[in-house]
């Protein structure tokens, strides 16, 4: 009998111990965040299974995104060229500023709806969202830092050690974890609440010029700037002559195929009123100059897109209506969402006063 009792006590002790350890782990486990696909949108291409969103992972990514120490001189965070009030592009800049008074060679694209995007950069050279931060981090005219130094800075910081542990279970800091955390944050940058979206959801209706513009859009623009993401993610030559100082051949740099010369990714038009200047090198400072390019300015080349071989006929009236429609793609709740702003600061994303039309 005595022996039985002893066994009971030991078993109880064991169970309590195991339960305590298990409960402890569950308590410290990162809290999952569900990624919601807006109604009517395609399924995302990002593999969330390999990098599940968690509150702690997103918080770490946001911290990293806004940390200037990721750059060589401490001045350039991801957020310095990807500003929320510009839909995460560099507001009002054709090219962005980088380390040591340098300029980038291309216009910083807005960052949103990245879960639906397979390839990155204007030339599609980067094949995975997790890899994307490596390019600006190490480019000498951007953040100009080495990955080794970035790792050393992060490892030396107690706060980061705690944040990596909270997000990934232990204090290991490596390139993979850093980039997965940044991916988690930027994946949450979903812009799906513009007036256009509200109209689609039946919560609002277009005024006449917007509706007329939408009808024209569906006829003349939609085949490349395909709804609901307003891009088909293809690479096209839209008759942009190379800037002689940049000599950017575009997609050809990646594929080595002359047929890809001067092809660039079709950019999304969401938040387009905020993402000026336009074009891969930011040569167009206003929407009207983009329209002017399509109807007059284009240099039609042998590999200019078949849809644009005769340029794009647009009347002044059509340009007016299209502009009205494009304005409905501005998602103010995205541009001012405090969850996307620098950690710990009030959102400063108030609309700058000058609007370039």
């Amino acid at each position, binding site marked *: 009998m005595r022996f039985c009792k002893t066994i009971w006590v*030991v078993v109880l002790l064991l169970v309590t111990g195991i339960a305590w350890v298990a409960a402890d782990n569950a308590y410290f486990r990162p809290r999952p965040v569900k990624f919601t696909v807006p109604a009517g949108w395609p399924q995302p291409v990002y593999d969330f299974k390999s990098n599940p969103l968690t509150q702690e992972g997103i918080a770490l990514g946001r911290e990293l995104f806004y940390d200037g120490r990721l750059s060589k001189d401490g001045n350039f965070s991801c957020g310095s060229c990807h500003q929320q009030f510009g839909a995460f592009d560099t507001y009002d800049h054709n090219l962005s500023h980088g380390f040591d008074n340098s300029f980038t060679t291309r216009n910083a694209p807005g960052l949103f709806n990245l879960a639906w995007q397979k390839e990155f950069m204007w030339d599609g*050279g*980067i094949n995975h969202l997790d890899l994307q931060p490596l390019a600006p981090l190490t480019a000498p005219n951007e953040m100009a830092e080495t990955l080794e130094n970035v790792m050393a800075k992060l490892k030396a910081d107690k706060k980061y050690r705690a944040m990596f542990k909270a997000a990934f279970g232990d204090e290991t800091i490596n*390139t993979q974890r850093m980039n*997965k955390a940044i991916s988690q944050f930027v994946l949450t940058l979903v812009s799906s609440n513009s007036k256009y979206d509200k109209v689609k959801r039946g919560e609002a209706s277009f005024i006449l010029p917007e509706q007329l513009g939408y009808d024209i859009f569906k006829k003349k623009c939609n085949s490349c700037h395909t709804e609901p993401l307003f891009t088909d993610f293809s690479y096209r030559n839209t008759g942009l002559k190379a800037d002689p100082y940049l000599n950017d051949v575009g997609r050809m740099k990646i594929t080595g195929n002359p047929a890809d010369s001067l092809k660039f990714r079709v950019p999304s038009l969401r938040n387009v009123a905020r993402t000026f200047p336009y074009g891969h090198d930011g040569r167009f400072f206003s929407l009207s100059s983009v329209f002017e390019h399509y109807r007059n300015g284009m240099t039609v080349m042998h590999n200019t897109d078949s849809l644009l071989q005769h340029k794009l006929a647009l009347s002044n009236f059509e340009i007016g209506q299209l502009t009205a429609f494009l304005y409905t793609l501005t998602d103010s709740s995205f541009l001012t969402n405090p969850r996307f702003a620098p950690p710990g600061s009030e959102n400063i994303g108030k609309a700058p006063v000058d609007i370039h039309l």
Partner: protein
Amino acid sequence: MNRFAKYIAFTGCLALLLSFTGKHPQEPHVVTLRFHSVIGNHSLELGRSYVNALGDTIAVQRFKYYVSNIIITDAVGKDVYLFPRRYYLVDAEDSASQSIQLKIPALPLKQVRFTLGVDSIRNVSGVQTGALDPLHGMFWTWNSGYIMAKLEGVSSSAHVPGQRFTYHVGGFKAADNTARVITLDLPPGTAPVDEINIAADINAWFKGGFLLKIGEHPICHSPGGLAVQIADNYKGMFSISSVR
């Protein structure tokens, strides 16, 4: 003995028992693949000048390459010991990186096969860790993909700044693929193998099916035709120098 002491004793025994079950009976036998760099008949010393197979004088400063998916065949040539999804970065500058330990029983072996480079799946699956961590400088950030092998140095034939020739050979897409499967037969024998010494001859980079003249091509930094030609050359750089 009071009751408390008994509990302690019981728990102690239990702990002892558990600790026994966790132990391996014995350490398994290990075969070591040891890579060493040579240039023709000379052992390579970084920074020292040699004349390569095409007569160019070169001083190598950096020489590294990926070794992955190792397969070892048994005495009758069957693929018995497979090490898939294991990646090693062999670096002439780091002697620890030059030996690869594989758990294989003490047996006679016939053939060593491995991929020089990184398979395409790892090139399209985001950021990797360990030997594949992009911080080792073997990853192109602007055109995603691994540099399979890298050879850098100085040569008077290189008419570029610093007279530096730099061959960063990569590319994983079908036509541009620079990963190469290397097959090396061990000398016939019946003795169990402990160590396989593999020589990597830099001369093979320059003189193979393609003649890589530094004066003509001092630089290779992107996937494409030149990279593939160099890859076809370096495919032949390995040989078994000795087996123990």
